[in-house]
């Protein structure tokens, strides 16, 4: 018997007045409450004469046992502490380590002891902007943004035109040369010309690029200064609320070709309401430049930017480096990103992080798996390095510097039409051979992770590709599409039900995005599947109860 187990012996006289005893082993320290005591009493009584149960013996047993446990436990705890002191005295415990650990814990987790970091510039700007955007200055902000955007997009157009002109003249020149081939020119001449043309083009592009970059930097500074200074003014004057009844928010800039909306209830007993919209559109339309036309969605996006109801879009991307969809990059570059870094910089940084991540993974995998949500600040970039999980691919591939299917990276935007946040989900499904996937496929698990991240960070409107594809292809048969859509719908439903227990923001609208080139017939079929998978809310009909 080890020293943390004690034996309780209970002596009693049974109904025939003979002396009996019952005993039970108790494990120390005894940390659980009265319920556990009751359990022990029950076990003792079961060992005793059944008559005792009817003689209300349990009360006596309980009192005796209780006293016994309290005393034994106290002795045990005292001894335990004294043994610790002995260890400390014999230098078996590293007291300095204890001191360091204690200090670390207090400094890392309790605000009074932490090294206070003031709010970052980003925080301050975010608050200023959020305040301003909910004031009468809103119109002015939008007007400015539009003006800035116009400058950039004009420059872009100019660049495109010049490049195009150059292209055509160069083409002509080349054609002429080629006609003269073997007459007055040699192939070397042509090669030379090619190289020369290429460098001219490159030069023009670079000139524009650097000009654009400078312009954007300039605009960004000007804009941010202006915002900060406006907030100062707002403080002086009485802050006016957002102009109510602005009609602008009612317009939606891009009308997708086909769409259908549903209100659904999820949950078996307690029902949560969500909106589901199925639509067919090009994913880049959801990430189109915000200020390009006179659309007024800019207002929605500005109001929501620093709120806790963000809009997110899931875009599929192959696993080569951190490569975003080209047209989205182009769209994001159509105007200055005033709030976050320009998309190229964001992507560049992410790429670096991916390298770091792989290095970290391969050198110290144990750090990741052991560190919990607290105290992992020794890895500077991982805030919530979260477990090692078994869902990932084989660990031998750790050293490669790319993301795998199901991983995703995130870019943030203030100048796209319908998304604040883009989840770039890695999917390597070959374009021309639709494969079969199941609910345990990494890309689906990645989708779950996206929903989880969305819930944790208040993304309440999320668009996901309903077929996990952005384009239709010849091989995508109707049956395949239906199977795939059913899988995605059902998994999304499961994740949404699950999300209720995550304790984050509830997803209010889920948009299921179908490829823009889908046939109308197929769209109708797939839209028809939505109410079968999700439970569509009953219409509320008001009836006069007096009737």
């Amino acid at each position: 018997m080890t020293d943390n187990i004690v034996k309780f012996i209970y002596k009693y006289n049974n109904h025939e007045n003979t002396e009996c005893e019952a005993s039970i082993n108790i494990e120390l320290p005894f940390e659980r409450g009265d319920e556990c005591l009751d359990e022990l009493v029950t076990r003792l009584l079961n060992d005793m004469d059944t008559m005792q149960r009817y003689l209300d013996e349990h009360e006596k047993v309980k009192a005796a046992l209780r006293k016994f446990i309290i005393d034994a436990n106290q002795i045990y705890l005292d001894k335990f502490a004294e043994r610790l002191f002995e260890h400390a005295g014999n230098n078996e415990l590293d007291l300095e380590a204890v001191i360091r650990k204690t200090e670390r814990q207090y400094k890392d987790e309790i605000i009074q002891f932490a090294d206070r970091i003031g709010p970052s510039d980003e925080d301050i700007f975010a608050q200023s902007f959020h305040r301003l955007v909910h004031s009468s200055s809103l119109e002015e902000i939008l007007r400015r943004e539009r003006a800035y955007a116009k400058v950039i997009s004009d420059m872009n157009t100019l660049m495109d035109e010049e490049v195009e002109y150059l292209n055509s003249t160069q083409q002509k020149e080349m054609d002429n040369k080629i006609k003269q081939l073997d007459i007055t020119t040699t192939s070397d001449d042509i090669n030379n010309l090619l190289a020369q043309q290429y460098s001219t083009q490159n030069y023009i592009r670079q000139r524009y690029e650097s000009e654009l970059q400078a312009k954007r930097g300039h605009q960004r500074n000007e804009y941010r200064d202006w915002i900060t200074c406006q907030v100062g003014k707002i403080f002086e004057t009485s802050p006016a609320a957002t102009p109510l009844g602005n009609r602008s928010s009612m317009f939606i800039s891009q009308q997708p070709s086909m769409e259908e909306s549903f209100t659904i209830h999820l949950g078996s007993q307690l029902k949560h309401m969500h909106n589901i919209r199925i639509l067919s559109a090009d994913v880049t339309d959801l990430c189109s430049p915000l200020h390009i036309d006179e659309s007024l969605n800019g207002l929605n996006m500005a109001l929501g930017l620093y709120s806790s109801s963000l809009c997110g879009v899931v875009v599929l991307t192959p696993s080569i480096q951190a490569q975003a969809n080209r047209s989205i990059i182009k769209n994001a570059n159509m105007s200055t990103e005033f709030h976050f870094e320009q998309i190229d910089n964001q992507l560049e940084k992410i790429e670096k992080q991916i390298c770091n991540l792989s290095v970290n993974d391969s050198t110290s995998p144990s750090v990741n798996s052991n560190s919990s949500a607290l105290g992992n600040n020794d890895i500077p970039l991982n805030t919530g390095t979260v477990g090692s999980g078994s869902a990932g691919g084989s660990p031998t591939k750790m050293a490669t510097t790319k993301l795998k299917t199901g991983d995703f990276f995130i870019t943030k935007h203030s100048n796209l039409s319908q998304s604040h946040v883009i989840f770039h989900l890695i999917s390597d499904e070959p374009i021309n051979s639709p494969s079969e996937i199941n609910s345990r496929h990494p890309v689906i698990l990645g989708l779950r992770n996206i929903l989880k991240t969305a819930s944790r960070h208040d993304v309440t409107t999320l668009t996901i590709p309903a077929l996990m594809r952005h384009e239709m292809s010849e091989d995508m048969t109707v049956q395949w599409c239906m199977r795939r859509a059913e899988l995605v719908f059902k998994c999304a439903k499961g994740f949404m039900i699950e999300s209720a227990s995550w304790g984050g923001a509830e997803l209010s609208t889920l948009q299921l995005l179908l490829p823009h080139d889908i046939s109308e017939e197929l769209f109708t079929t797939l839209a028809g599947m939505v109410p079968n998978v999700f439970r569509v809310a009953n219409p509320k009909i008001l009836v006069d109860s007096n009737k």
Partner: protein
Amino acid sequence: MHQSSSKPESRLAAITFFAKTHPGDVCGSNGLPLTPNSIAILGRAQRLKDLKHPHLCQYLDFVRGKHERTIVVSEYFGTTLLDKSRVALLDSLIARIFYQIVCALKELAEQNLVVHNLEPKHILLDDCNNVKIFNYGLYHMTKCGDYVPFPIGNVRYMPPERFLGAKNNIKSDIWSLGMIVAELLLQTTIWSGMKISNITRKILSFLQVGNVFEKIAREHNCLERYAQINGELRALVETCLNVAPSKRPLPTELLSHPYFSKDVTTYAYTEPPKSNVLLLRCPLEQIYYWWQLAGGDVQSELKKEGLIRSEAPILAIPQIVCLNGAIVGPKRSQSYLMDDRVVPLKLNNLFEKLCNLPAMAYFPLIHSPKFPHNFGASMAQLPLVIREKDIEYQFYRVRLFSRLLKGYPYTSDMIRKEAAKDIPPYLRGPIWACLLDVIPIGSYEKIDKFTPTSTDRQIEVDIPRCHQYDELLSSPVGHCKLKRLLKAWVTAHPQYVYWQGLDSLTAPFLYLNFNNEELAFLSLYKFIPKYLQWFFLRDNSAIIKEYLCKFSQLTAFHEPILAKHLSSINFIPELFAIPWFLTMFSHVFPLHKIMHLWDKLMLGDSSYPLFIGISILKQLKSTLLSSGFNECILLFSDLPDIVMENCVLESQKMYECTPKSVSHRLHVLREEPLTEFDITTDVTLAHLQAEMCPRISAKDFTNLLHHAPNDMCALDLRSAVEYSHVHVPHSLNVPFVAAQLSEPRLDALGVPQLEELMHGRIVICISNTHEHAVQFSKFLVECGVLRVCILHKGFNILHTIEPNILISN
């Protein structure tokens, strides 16, 4: 009124912190996702609400915010010791504080609790210098700090063994107490301005020291003061500050120390004078409840104080998230760190709302009809959900019911009468128990809830699926409690078995009486025989079949068109209604709806649930009528949202207008034996299955005839000759001709204005040939006639009724 005009101080305060988040996608041993730590905290914390002791601040509420935030609301008032000790205190006062903290520690030790964060900031003093300790439950609710990322306790007052990993020892609190008292006696702040590492080093260096108190005095140049302290008191502090825990005294030992016992009255608790603000004489938990109704919102109070900082979520979004759990993102914001500021909740709003109430409202007189506690009729007209949110109304109701409950069981009838109006949510648990005639006698404790049985496996499987959207029921503590309740019920009923659904049935009682398992158990114990007699037999098929047959008949009685449609598509109740009745709808509705449903159910008899079932069908009527078999199955597989208020009203209406014998079932707990004028036991299941319409007893028939002849329409199916011979007054002779019934058209009967005559009345088919009545009643139902029933035993039974009701020529 009698209230003073000065603004009273706040009595409540809130603190907040974040629970640890679970790393990644870890699953528990049962394969289900782990319970969020904030929920586990919520469950563990509940028992703290029950601690009521003069030296402990009462815990009032635990709120779970977004993203694992936990908010704790508790009593808070007066001055903290930290503020009070800015000036030197008298030794006698210090001794008093010492004594009273020991009292608090003793109480906690008896409850198996340790404080582990005892410090002057958490010690409150009222005007009479009574001590109450605050925030003493943090260590317990966070399971020794396991559920939170931050360390618990002020380093300065922490005993050396805590740094080395010892925990849960009450003697550690004795050390903290010793430090606090030592600090007061030396009139200095120990180690002020020192870094945490240095303080820790100091405390650990005590391991080699004999007299800690003296050493501290020496370090702080207070040896002179040290020498002045009363020798006995100094010795007491020194024992508390003994490095070896075994040599530190237990609270009980301290209390019986001669230093205290010789002069207990100066140290012991003095009852403060009764507040002249009537509201403050009410129990604190009620005040908090009303505070919430008066618009109080803890979260917004914390926000105002900057304790809940709203940072733009978009800034915290990570950059990369990998399937293997790796996340790259911005640094964790400091707003997630522990901030132990205390935010008092202002009661001003509540005082304003209640300032016009007469004193009678606070202390209602329940036995003097001269002072009725009517709130005004207009209130009763409002929907229940509005009444439940009305601060003044709830104030009246809560005061009234808390008084009535004190008088239970003598006030049983009054409780029943008041409960018929509505039940205040705040007291629902105990009120239900009264409606179920529960009288706790300590029997729950005797039941064996622990010995493993064969049903354990099923119970283990069911519990993690039972109303898990609810925070209390999904917490580990909730799971344990539910398991104990279920096992206790199974042990207490050897004649019954555990049927799946018992878990759902138990959930509402546990939810309402989370801290009072015995009450929850006894309520369930009484509830089942009242509404579900014999449903939990191993072979319950006869009971369920009878129940469902009766359900079909009553559907035909109240909703003939619907009944006709459902029977035509063969959509029988067996396909959908078993879980409804077996769990009294607790499996199909969320808890907040079950509350309102059962509020009324508790007042009705065993037939009431049948009407709830019909009212659900009624609400889905239009969908059902346009659906075929498959659509109906789909519809009921995941029941759509039902409007509970309508459902309750409808079922109430139907329940009231249905004669008792119409809803008669054989398998109920009967208090009075059946007579020959009731539905007799010879009516078998086969009869029920063959008849579309329910039977009415001769007793109810006569009753109707005497008291409400306008509510009934008796159709006499015998031949005209027999009718002319003898008949029931006001009855209509419709001689039975089988051929007329081939098509469901009323005019085929050739009785003028028959439809108008039957409208709004209970239609009773009387015949001497039972088969005729059955066929004819079916015909009426198919014609869409409401409330059709058959007289049990036919016309002949009417001859035997005394006094005679028949008219004979």
